[in-house]
């Protein structure tokens, strides 16, 4: 079958000072195909597409798009040339309406006389959203009233409105629910049918295997290989990504380990302020890994916050059983050895503009300081220990956390709580946006903590990891308990999904 080349990068190189992000990569994208791109953090996969879309210039090399030489200097230019890009981070602008977001920069299109017709703009916006199958949102609504996923869909509508010839989806699916992912898959399929092209970047191997026609693997700025449909399987891909055999198990290896009877945390008829969690009760045992799963709005994220004393309870009580004290604030929780890793890493777990050092010590001042004084030496010791034991890759502890990759950021967050030697650790989506290598390391770490007697509560939207790691798995639906499952080799996803939906 003759493949028509829509985009080609020849010998593309990108340097950031002495850092080589791309090393003479030759990358081809064909029409009518969904081309996957995968690689660990820092492999260069996002760099290639961002250069193609116009976000930044290449250091050397050439690109051809639609048969012409291609070197856009801005994203708007790239978009006009026919490359659309959807990213992982927030791409919409707060404070204005949905329609204004979709047509940001292009309002003059709706000019009638000296005025801009809001009515026409809203109409077009509605059409744009319907085109991607996203209905039910009022274009005149302020974007801040929408949740993160809907905001992302607005962004997608905006990109698709410009009818790109080549669409780049850069790790967008991780933050979306199943419904959101379906919309994206739908768009990708349609692009393929229309003989256009899609470049799909994701960490989710299964997703890539299911959707892509070819999969290109990058590692350390080099293009390693391109796999065809029939060559794509998890282990092979992992092997190419990491460059070595993945040793040992990914998740826990044991089955049948008994869990202590002792209850450390009791949640009693609790209703969250947002109402998403209703009259919920459960018990957590010492030393167990308790998994909590469900669909996006089942109330599990709120549960996590409540257990840490972050939010106010409408009804009920949460008790730290060994001491008998009720958890009413973050300070109380921390006093009893609680730790909390939020699912919103950048906005809640970290202070992005602060250094790695600042962030790691931010939960443990009382542990590092002797009386009033906190010496730089004590701080350094504390931080170095975490950086080393977690293998945090950085240019030094004085580096701002915002410059780290997702995986390393998460390691910093972990370091913050591990340094405190928490007994009860509440994790919410701990491996989101984290690449394979780091994921594996985290699962090992969690298992080690369990073996050391710590209690872990793991809230996650990824069923595989819940299945792989939990001693006990609770499924929530619409704010109430829908099912309880125990660790077993025979337990599989289908059992769970039945209960979830």
């Amino acid at each position, binding site marked *: 079958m003759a493949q028509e080349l829509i985009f080609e990068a020849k010998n593309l190189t990108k340097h*950031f*000072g*002495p*850092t080589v*992000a791309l090393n003479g990569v030759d990358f081809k994208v064909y029409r009518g195909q969904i081309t996957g791109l995968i690689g*660990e*953090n*820092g492999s260069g996969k*996002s*760099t290639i597409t*961002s250069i193609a879309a116009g*976000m*930044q210039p290449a250091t050397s090399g050439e690109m051809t798009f639609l048969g012409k030489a291609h070197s856009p200097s801005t994203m708007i230019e790239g978009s006009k040339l026919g490359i659309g890009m959807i990213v992982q981070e927030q791409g919409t602008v707060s404070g204005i309406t949905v329609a204004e977001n979709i047509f940001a920069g292009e309002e003059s299109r709706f000019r009638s006389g000296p005025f801009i017709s809001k009515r026409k703009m809203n109409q077009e916006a509605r059409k744009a959203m319907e085109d991607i199958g996203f209905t039910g949102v009022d274009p005149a609504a302020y974007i801040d009233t929408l949740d993160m996923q809907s905001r992302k869909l607005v962004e997608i509508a905006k990109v698709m409105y410009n009818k790109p010839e080549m669409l780049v989806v850069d*790790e967008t699916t991780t933050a979306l629910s199943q419904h959101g992912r379906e919309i994206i898959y739908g768009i990708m399929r349609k692009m393929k049918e229309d003989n256009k092209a899609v470049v799909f970047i994701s960490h989710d191997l299964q997703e890539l295997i299911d959707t892509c026609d070819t999969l290109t693997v990058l*590692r*350390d700025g080099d293009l390693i290989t391109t796999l065809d449909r029939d060559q794509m399987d998890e282990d092979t891909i992992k092997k190419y990504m*990491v*460059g070595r055999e993945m040793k040992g198990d990914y998740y826990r290896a044991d089955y049948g380990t008994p869990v202590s009877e002792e209850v450390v945390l009791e949640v009693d008829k609790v209703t969250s302020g947002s109402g998403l969690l209703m009259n919920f009760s459960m018990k957590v045992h010492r030393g167990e890994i308790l998994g909590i799963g469900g669909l996006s709005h089942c109330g599990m994220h709120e549960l996590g916050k409540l257990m*840490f004393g*972050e939010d106010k309870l409408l009804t009920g009580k949460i008790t730290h059983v060994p001491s008998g004290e009720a958890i009413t604030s*973050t*300070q109380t929780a*921390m006093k009893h050895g609680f730790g*909390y890793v*939020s699912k919103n890493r950048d*906005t*809640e*777990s*970290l*202070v*992005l*503009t*602060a*250094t790695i050092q*600042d962030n790691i*010590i*931010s*939960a443990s*001042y*009382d542990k*590092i*300081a002797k009386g*009033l*004084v*906190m*010496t*730089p030496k004590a701080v350094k010791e504390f931080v170095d220990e975490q950086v080393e034991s977690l293998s945090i*890759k*950085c*240019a030094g502890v004085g*580096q*701002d956390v*915002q*410059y*780290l*990759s*997702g995986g*390393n950021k998460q390691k910093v967050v972990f370091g*913050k709580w591990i340094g405190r030697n928490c007994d009860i650790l509440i994790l919410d989506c701990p491996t989101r946006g984290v690449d394979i*290598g780091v994921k594996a390391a985290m699962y090992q770490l969690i298992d080690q903590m369990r073996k050391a007697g710590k209690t872990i509560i793991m809230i996650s939207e990824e069923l595989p990891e819940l299945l792989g790691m939990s001693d006990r798995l609770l499924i929530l639906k619409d704010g109430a308990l829908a099912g309880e499952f125990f660790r077993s080799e025979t337990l599989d996803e289908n059992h769970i999904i039945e209960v979830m939906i």
Partner: protein
Amino acid sequence: MSEKKSTKINLGGIGKLAPLIGLVLVILIFTALTGGKLLSVTNLQNMANQVMVTALVAIGAVFVYGVGNFDMSLGGAVLFSAVLGAMAAVRSGSIFVTLVVCILVSVAIALIKGIFSAYIEVPFFIFTIVLGSVISSIVLVIMGSETTVYLKDAVREIPTFNFTQMTIINVVFLAVYFLVCLFLFNYTPIGSKAKMMGGNKVSAKQSGINDKKMHVLTFVISAIGVALAAFILIIRTRTIGSQTAGSVGTDVLIALVVGGMPISGGPKSKISAGLVGALTVVVLNSGLTMVGLSTAWIQAIRGVVFIVVVLVSSFSYRGKLLPR
């Protein structure tokens, strides 16, 4: 697999040192322009006197701004402290009582600010502007038809300090306060907590930082600086009127910016900003006046210097984000 190191542009390094470089430059330039008179013993003592109020308030302000509170009521706090302190001086004739009153008044104001910012949802910035106005009005009412408090009217004579004595007092106060603040900011958790709060309120809270306590604490620390400034104003000028400390608010802001302090607070806050900035501004003012330019030119040059400082400091915030 090695993580790619990200290297910032060299300018970032310059950005961090800019305030200090600026100070040195300004000193050198004006020493040359005034034929060395800038650094004469007389003028050094002058500058020590001139820098006091701004420096004391600016150093303490690093805590307040660092946490993310934009406080425009500092001038009002100095005024109120000075007025009540001066009145106490006149009625009691004791320097000691004066100092105590200054401290009590500024700490009281600090507590009010702390309660407000911790418990009430109105943007803090607006509250401080209102507070500043309210203080000015209260001062007018308190002073009544007097309009100015003169220390010479005191019940028992309050000693006048001559030039040299004043300088020594100034330098000692400033050094002590600066060192204490330096210690609190860099060698105790207070500074780190403040910076984290300024960087991201939610994250700081989730890490267990008690924001209410921190708000009050930072205000109280800055209140000591305010009290000292008010006290020095009283014993040096011996005259406190309703216009006293009128320009402190903006002077402190300018000093902080010139000193390299991010006005929105956060992790890049540094305690040196207050001192370096105040010194730079004082040297600049002194130098410009001594060179003999007309005041219009002086103001123009000040404006340009300010712009340049802002431009250079902005370099330190630029760094390319490495795409993952």
